[in-house]
């Protein structure tokens, strides 16, 4: 199983955290090292010409539309879990406070709902919510990019892969 990327969106629809675990060749840099570098934040361009921030906006629009569609069809208590295309699979988890966690994996991945839930309770709540220095609203990703959260997330994802 390969995990491509991970995004967190706050209740104001802003992308407050994104991280990618893409192999270098997938980012149009075939001469790079063969290890998986962790790139985040930098507005590098993808092979498809999307900037990283554009990707986040597109992903948010997609999950937001699908979530509303699913609620309309399946009732108010229904929740959108995942969708799959021929190239990738997108997993979605929304907390009661409208924090949305999104993960992109390869198509053979099993349901990652519990993984996203674990990230929420073991990393987000522990290292971001319980951090006294972290602001209540994470405008522009404030308070999310702390060392413990980043390290914990990277370790956790690498453990799954």
């Amino acid at each position, binding site marked *: 199983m390969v995990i*491509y*990327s991970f995004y967190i969106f706050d209740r104001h629809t802003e992308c407050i955290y994104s991280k*990618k675990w*893409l192999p270098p*060749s*997938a980012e*149009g840099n075939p001469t790079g090292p063969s290890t998986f570098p962790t790139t985040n934040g930098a507005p590098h361009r*993808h*092979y*498809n010409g*999307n900037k990283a921030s554009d*990707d986040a906006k*597109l*992903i948010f*629009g*997609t999950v937001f*539309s*699908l979530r509303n*569609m*699913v609620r*309309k*069809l*399946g*009732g108010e*208590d*229904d*929740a*959108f*879990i*995942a*969708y*799959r*295309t*021929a*190239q*990738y699979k*997108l997993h979605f988890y929304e907390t009661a406070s409208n924090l949305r966690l999104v993960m*992109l994996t390869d198509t053979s991945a099993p*349901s990652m709902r519990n993984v996203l839930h674990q990230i929420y309770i073991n990393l987000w709540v522990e290292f971001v919510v319980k951090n006294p220095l972290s602001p209540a609203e994470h405008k522009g990703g404030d308070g999310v990019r702390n060392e413990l959260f980043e390290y914990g997330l990277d370790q956790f994802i690498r453990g799954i892969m």
Partner: protein
Amino acid sequence: MTVFALIIINKAGGLVYNRTFYEGGLQKISTNDLLVLAGTFHGVHAITSRLSPVKPAQAQAQATPPTQQPPGLLTRPEPPSGLEVLETENFRLQCFNTMTGTKFLLFTDTTQANVDVVMRRVYEMYSDYVMKNPFYQLEMPIRCDMFDRKLSSYIREINNR
């Protein structure tokens, strides 16, 4: 095993066919909402095909080593596909996009297996009883008795199995 409903969306994003086979599977929504939903899905489908995190060529290279490909054969990668399967807590949505851009949306319960087979049969029926109907106008709502009847009996057979 239950098939809840079938929706057909034409290549412009317009709703051309809508049929519920099992009451109680999905919420009842007005025709107006359904039209909006079809348009929204059409847009989301287009976005999901642009979100692929990996290079198409790279994905293909992993599937078939380049040495095995016969010389002279065009090695054009598969075009990126949009959303194929959507999973939620209450239902499962399978989407089939034909070569001409018509989308078949089949709503089933979450445990339904072999939706591909059902989808294929529905597409066959569409080809036989809608496309071969001389009175059917392309891209217009489908009103073909024969299609309705054959579809009903086929889905009833599945739902009663």
